[in-house]
């Protein structure tokens, strides 16, 4: 909850604008490095090739950061994220359902855009159904909601496996590879579409920031202050669904990234207004993704995967949060 300025911080860091500026500068440097380090040969090719990848990473970072912050505001805690609640897994499941219904590789290769649109629509409906039940029904304990979300995630993943095996048992591994995008294999052909989706979502989201600042105080206070609670939460959930679809379509499911980014942002931002938290979270996400990808490519020579490291760090942070009782 808004406990801004709780910890003593050095004077310049008490100004959120300075925090954002510093992070933006770091991001800028990393972008410069990402585009130029180790470049040999034709510049026009390198810039276009790396540019697409960089752009995708930035989009993903922004989508994950924004969706997690919104989700944590409406669920009133720092430990739930859309990914932990199984949103990502649901998206991947829908992808395989579509392939199952409309037949194999044709769909995958034919029209990535149309497929993305259908998936997002169906997913919004499903998400509203499942999560409406969890959040609007009888007041349920946070631990129950979390556990149900995690088990739902497992269910979605098993169903995906199941469907993929039904579609073509011989091509199981290949199909699975095609379903799971990754940081090393970003889906660049839907970049344009994702960009439009993100812009639209942002237009709505940024106008909602003041409302969400009120929502963050708590349900009852927000209602007292005149917020149309149910409507606002529904809008927020719809936005979250859109954002998660975008990031999952681009790089596949990453369970803990949002958790890490949002908690770091709350830790270092001296203000808990959305107008400050969201940019900070997005910049941290960009720094992690670009920096991490550079480290992997240049230092580890692709010898490990960014998502593995995120899962590792995120799991530990999650356990610590649970142990400290932040979840209540």
């Amino acid at each position: 909850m808004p406990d801004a300025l709780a910890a003593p911080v050095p004077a310049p860091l008490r100004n959120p604008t300075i925090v954002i500026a510093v992070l933006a500068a770091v991001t800028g440097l990393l972008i410069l490095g990402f585009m130029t380090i180790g470049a040999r040969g034709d510049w026009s090719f390198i810039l276009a090739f790396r540019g697409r990848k960089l752009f995708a990473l930035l989009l993903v970072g922004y989508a994950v950061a924004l969706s997690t912050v919104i989700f944590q505001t409406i669920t009133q805690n720092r430990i739930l994220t859309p990914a932990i609640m199984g949103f990502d897994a649901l998206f991947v499941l829908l992808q395989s359902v579509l392939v199952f219904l409309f037949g194999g590789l044709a769909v995958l290769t034919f029209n990535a855009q149309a497929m993305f649109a259908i998936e997002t629509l169906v997913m919004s409906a499903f998400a509203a159904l499942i999560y409406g039940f969890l959040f609007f029904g009888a007041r349920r304990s946070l631990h129950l909601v979390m556990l149900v979300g995690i088990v739902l995630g497992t269910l979605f993943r098993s169903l995906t496996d199941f469907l993929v095996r039904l579609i073509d048992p011989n091509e199981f591994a290949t199909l699975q590879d095609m379903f799971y995008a990754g940081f090393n294999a970003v889906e660049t052909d839907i970049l344009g579409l994702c960009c439009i989706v993100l812009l639209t979502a942002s237009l709505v989201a940024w106008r909602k920031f003041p409302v969400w600042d009120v929502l963050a105080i708590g349900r009852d206070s927000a209602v007292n202050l005149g917020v149309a609670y149910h409507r606002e939460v529904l809008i927020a959930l719809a936005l979250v669904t859109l954002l998660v679809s975008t990031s999952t379509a681009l790089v596949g499911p990453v369970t803990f990234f949002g958790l890490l980014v949002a908690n770091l942002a709350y830790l270092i931002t001296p203000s808990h207004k959305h107008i400050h938290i969201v940019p900070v979270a997005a910049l941290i996400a960009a720094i992690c993704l670009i920096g991490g990808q550079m480290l992997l490519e240049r230092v580890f020579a692709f010898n490990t995967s960014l998502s593995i490291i995120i899962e590792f760090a995120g799991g530990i942070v999650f356990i610590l949060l649970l142990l400290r009782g932040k979840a209540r």
Partner: protein
Amino acid sequence: MTHRFAIPAALLLVVLLACASLTIGVSDLDLTALLRGGGTDRQTLILFASRIPRTIALILSGASMAIAGLLLQMLARNRFVEPSTVGTIESASLGLLATLVFWPAAPVMVKMGIAALFALGGTTLFLRILSLIKWRDVLIVPLVGLMLSGVIESITDFFAYRFELLQALANWRTGDFSGVLRGRYELLWLSFAMALITYVAADRFTVAGLGESFATNLGLAYRRILALGLTIIAIVSAIVVVSVGMVPFLGLVVPNVVRMAVGDNMRRGLPYVALLGAGLVLVSDIAGRLIRFPYEIPIGTVMGVLGSVIFLYLLLKRTPANA
């Protein structure tokens, strides 16, 4: 609901399922003809080298996994945990990966032993973390467990990625009985022996499940019983991972279903847990064989779907009153 015919009826059901499991497969096998001595050599070979081993493996692993789940639930004093959701199975695969990297030619007993040691370490770590939680909500225990398994899994992934062993890892993670042949499942008898030991010591585990101070007051060597229980769980998990791979949620679902019918007494519940475990594994494996005949869907995938649905039901059923 405990009826004196309940156990024989369950036993009969498992036998029937086992017979079904013997006859289902790509090559036709007529059991009655074989019994009358009318089968060809090839049919006899398939029966003895593949079908019978597979069916025995199913029964043994189902029963012992379900019992290991029940045992862990007693020791962790929480009914929403099982070896694959607290890091035990994941640690066993990490150990197995380590043997594959450092000593690929190790005999299977050694591999199993190292995997069991890792599993023991993982489970102990989980119990240590639990003891750090001050405010112990029923649901925080499985949450911590699931996250811990995730962390151990990512460590395993990290090394598997470096040594290009992701393929092998995928095999252990998705339980699959299609590779079970004569000579490749016998270790499972050992896990069944562990299940028998659990039955003998059942009353002690029940007391240990009441908590350290209470158990010590009753004159029980709590630490020793805890160590015995953890060792049994680790060995069963390691054997199952080494021979068939992980079957998720089995150890969680079965004891809960039995508990609803029979209540909390472990010694009385154990035979039901063993039979239901064997039965559920048989049903899932047979379903996996039939759904996409002649291909097979691994039991790990089938149980992943079935198990998580039952788990969700168990979670939501208890909601309104005591959430």
